């Protein structure tokens, strides 16, 4: 038996989490370094996965399979396709930056404050989330996936509820109330989704007799497993609901602005750039493969919801007064694009959606982390409290602008590629939807530029006059993200090469072919 690479990739951060949590309270810095080193080692393993993965090879590679609960046919089955590899790489890349960006976020508050901030816990929880996210991307057993899909909520709950911004405009008491509200809201939303999914998972077991994604998908493909139309639809809805909450899709989105607003910036990045991707990823892997007919049946409704998400999220982002909530609503808009790309059922749409997941992760991380640096300097999340930062902290403003430009999908930066692919993919099958979604790019420009203008330009406000520019640690966080944004914008081929075969497979799972161009069709 070969080395269980996938297990190792997931187990390493888990062990790291335990080790970090076990570091004595006095050695705070040691815990930070330990977490950073573990996350970097995980990155190395993820890169190994990336290298060992052969895009033209079998659909699921590096597979591992062991019996787990034989009575219920639950197996410990791991395997990655191109989409999963890309997302694992994204996760592994982002976590070190998140850790580095949150270096001081969990330090004990200045003396006199009663709040207890367990530094070790903060970093251990981040690593725990990483482990769970990675194994969710790897699991090819529905039950195994479900367990970690749900288990993720626990560390996230503590990350949101336990660690807020250092300063808060309404005082520590209010902040704690709002934080716990946000954390509970996050938990409840996702638990409800998860419970409905659990019912669907059990239903799937009753119908199919086991939990193996590959076996069920194969049985569905060769016709040996027939589901009644209504059964398939109900099961699909059960799965989709959970993923739509996680993703999040309108109107199940309201937990995200609260969670992202109250959490520290690195945790907010963890939510939107890493954890939420599990939702969209699972739509692609589970909804489409297990329930192809029901997916096609639900497409019109889902496209409408995605479209509403795009426009609604963008409009609300324009109306926000809080920087982090603005980014949250922008993310809702972007998730609308991703879901639209998945359910457009075209190669371009799905490749674009996958690419979008990766790119959105990087671009939001860049924007949100810089926003976090900004907020930590002034101690306010309100846009109106800033002004003229460009003058005092040009590098901060510049990176913020690049993050913003990535968010508005400027060509040359990575998100453009994915957004355009999604739009083209949607347009070629549903022209009206595509055109309406295109309005989203105008609105994206509006909220980004308004944010930039109000915070960075104009006369220098007295409160920001002595704001320091980015420090070395912060620059180390932002610069690689910016480089990645530019590189993947100019040369996304490495990612698309990995993703394309997997998308081709998914397309054949749902028995869909790309619409042919008219000229060739005429020939």
């Amino acid at each position, binding site marked *: 038996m070969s080395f269980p690479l996938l297990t190792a990739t997931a187990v390493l951060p888990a062990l790291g989490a335990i080790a970090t949590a076990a570091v004595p309270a006095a050695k705070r810095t040691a815990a930070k370094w330990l977490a950073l080193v573990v996350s970097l080692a995980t990155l190395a393993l993820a890169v190994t996965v990336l290298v060992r993965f052969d895009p033209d090879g079998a659909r699921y590679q590096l597979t591992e399979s062991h019996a787990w609960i034989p009575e219920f046919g639950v197996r410990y089955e791991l395997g990655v396709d191109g989409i999963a590899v890309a997302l694992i790489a994204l996760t592994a890349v982002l976590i070190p930056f998140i850790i580095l960006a949150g270096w001081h976020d969990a330090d004990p508050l200045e003396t006199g404050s009663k709040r207890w901030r367990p530094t070790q816990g903060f970093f251990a929880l981040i690593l725990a989330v990483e482990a769970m996210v990675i194994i969710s991307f790897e699991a090819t057993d529905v039950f195994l996936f479900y367990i970690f899909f749900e288990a993720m909520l626990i560390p996230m709950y503590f990350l949101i509820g336990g660690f807020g911004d250092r300063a808060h405009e309404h005082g520590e008491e209010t902040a704690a109330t709002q934080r716990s509200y946000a954390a509970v*809201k996050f938990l409840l*939303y996702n638990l409800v989704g998860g419970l409905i999914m659990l019912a669907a998972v059990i239903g799937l077991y009753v119908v199919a007799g086991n939990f193996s994604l590959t076996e069920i998908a194969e049985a569905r493909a060769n016709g040996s497993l027939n589901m009644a139309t209504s059964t398939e639809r109900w099961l699909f809805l059960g799965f989709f609901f959970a993923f739509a909450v996680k993703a999040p899709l309108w*109107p199940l*989105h*309201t937990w995200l602005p609260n969670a992202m607003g109250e959490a520290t910036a690195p945790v907010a990045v963890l939510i939107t750039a890493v954890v939420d991707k599990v939702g969209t990823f699972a739509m692609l892997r589970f909804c489409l493969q297990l329930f192809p007919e029901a997916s096609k049946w639900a497409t019109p409704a889902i496209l409408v919801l995605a479209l509403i998400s795009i426009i*609604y999220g963008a*409009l*609300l982002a*324009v*109306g*926000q007064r809080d920087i982090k909530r603005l980014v949250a609503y922008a993310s809702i808009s972007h998730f609308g694009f991703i879901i639209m790309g998945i359910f457009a059922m*075209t*190669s*371009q749409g799905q*490749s674009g959606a996958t690419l979008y997941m990766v790119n959105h992760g990087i671009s939001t991380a860049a924007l949100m982390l810089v926003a976090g640096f900004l907020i930590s300097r002034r101690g306010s999340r309100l846009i109106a409290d800033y002004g003229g930062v*460009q*003058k005092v902290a040009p590098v901060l403003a*510049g990176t913020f602008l690049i993050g913003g*430009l990535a968010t508005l999908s400027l*060509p*040359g930066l990575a998100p*453009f*590629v994915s957004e*355009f692919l999604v*739009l*083209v993919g949607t*347009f*070629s099958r549903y*022209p009206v939807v*595509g*055109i309406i979604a*295109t*309005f989203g*790019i*105008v609105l994206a*420009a*509006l909220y980004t*530029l*308004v944010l930039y*203008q109000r915070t*960075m*330009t*104009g*006369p220098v406000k007295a409160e920001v006059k002595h704001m320091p520019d980015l420090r070395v640690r912060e620059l180390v966080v932002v610069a690689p993200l910016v480089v990645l944004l530019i590189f993947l914008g*100019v*040369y*996304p*081929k490495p990612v*698309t*090469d990995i993703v*394309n075969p997997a*998308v*081709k497979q998914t397309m054949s799972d749902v028995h869909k072919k*790309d*619409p042919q*161009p*008219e*000229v*060739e069709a*005429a020939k």
Partner: protein
Amino acid sequence: MENLIALLVAAPLLGAAVLLCGGRRLDAVGHWIGTALAAVSFVLGVVLFADMLGKSPENRTLMQHLFSWIPVEGFQANVGFQLDQLSMTFVLLITGVGSLIHLYSIGYMEHDERRRRFFGYLNLFLAAMLLLVVADNYLLLYVGWEGVGLASYLLIGFWQHKPSAATAAKKAFLVNRVGDMGLSIAIMLMFTTFGTFAFGPVFQATGALTSGADAPGSEGKLTAIGLMLLLAACGKSAQVPLQSWLGDAMEGPTPVSALIHAATMVTAGVYLIVRSGDIFNAAPDAQLAVTVVGAVTLLFGAIVGCAKDDIKKALAGSTMSQIGYMVLAAGLGPIGYAFAIMHLVTHGFFKAGLFLGAGSVMHGMNDEVDMRKYGGLRKYMPITFVTFGLGYLAIIGFPGLSGFFSKDKIIEAAFAKGGAEGWILGGAALLGAAITAFYMTRVMLMTFFGEERWRHAPTPSPAEPSVEPAAETRGAHAEPHPHESPKVMTIPMIVLAVGSVFAGAFFGIGERFVKWLEPVTGFEHGHPPVSALTVTLSTVAVMVVGVGFAYAQYGRRPVPVVAPRGSLLTRAARRDLLQDDFNHVVLVRGGEHLTRSLVYVDHTLVDGVVNGTAATMGGLSGRLRRLQNGFARSYAVSMFGGAAVLIAATLLMRAV
């Protein structure tokens, strides 16, 4: 040779990267690096041009495939370049005028502490613009298209401390985004119709589509593509209805206005239309829309130009109007493409020259932009006066100068459209020529002639209250001492003036320019209903009339320092014909209300449903918790009762 194309783009890109990432260490030499790399690009352009001239006209197109950009099933986007005569024309214009303006900026921006960054942005602009014109497919063109938009955004808002500049930059970007939406929809339409969006295959497929009668509704598709491309062009080239950003864009430093908002970027829309000529040729409805937009804009811009007292805004109106001419010509089909580009090039020379002249005037007048506070400057800035004057003569179409050749041809072609359309379009173009002569003469007279109004009324403060101490050190409040600009600024002006004088004749005589472009754009001679000579004579005549009117109003009477109230039209024109007010009321206010109400809805309705559910649950459980009295025996009763119910249920199930 092909590799030089990539270098052409790479040189300024490298400059931008070095200058923007280099930090303060490069402050001392940054401007020279920027200028040098722009010049390198120009030299490369010239080398490529020489190489091109050495080939036969049919084989002049250079193609280079660099790498596969977005390879996805069924969707292939490449990074590849196509350099043909059309692109070449643009390359030379961009790098040539660009280099000159880099040079000029060294002087103009001398006292700005962020000069290095300014040159970085300028280089970024050059790279994006070059990418735009040498791209071999629409998607890559789109990259350049947005790239120039970004550079324009950064440069308009270069003086970010001024809220007006930041707002203007944002406005420009947003309005352009609306146009970009058109371009992206056009690309999507091409992809669904042809399966590709590379120039060559698309134009081939267009031909196949129109020749073969087997694709019903194909013209509708092509018209849709054409209209979307037109929307894109409107955004970038400030055509009605997306013109509102150009006037505000004058908040940027003057070299920026000269390079981006006069000579190059704003003409990208014309490039797009001419480049997509094959599509427009097959979609007459779209073509008609193009001509209408052009005609409306050329009058719109001209009227706005008449009313503005801000010298740069007056020139911006003029730019809008002149691009209207080009768009009009481009909408005329093969009879107009070449003339559109020819006017574009000559306009590039003289308008850049005019802007640089305006910048030179402002430089000497403590950044004063109000022409009512100029007057009689010809004595103090002779070189500026001469170069500006030559540009002025060129733009109004003074016989023999470059504007005369290019504009006259467009008017001719407009008449040659034939029928009522021809008469209307031609008439509009002719009227536009008259108004052009009027407002340009107005600018000329108010600036360089008449009494020295700046002497009587010491400059109060510039139009925008400046909060930036740097601007104050430039002495905005002191009495101006008009003086000639340094050599580094005047030399580019002189070069551009030479271009404005001779370029038209060089291109126009013997149809040299038309023949040069013909392999790319095609050409057919138009047949105006009246003879060409009549058109030319009437053009000159209306020009003279326009000049006369202007002289009567501004040359013979003193110009009031404070603007008179003016007629309704004047007041409307001062406010950009109320377009901004419309935008403000409908889009800005409406949008604000929409977003505000949506925020409210999200908070109360969407979130309210959830919170309401939570509250209901809370109330319900508050009632239920009274059952939890803490007595173990009570709990035991419920357990026992539950067991009884279970037995009953089992029995019932067995009974059934």
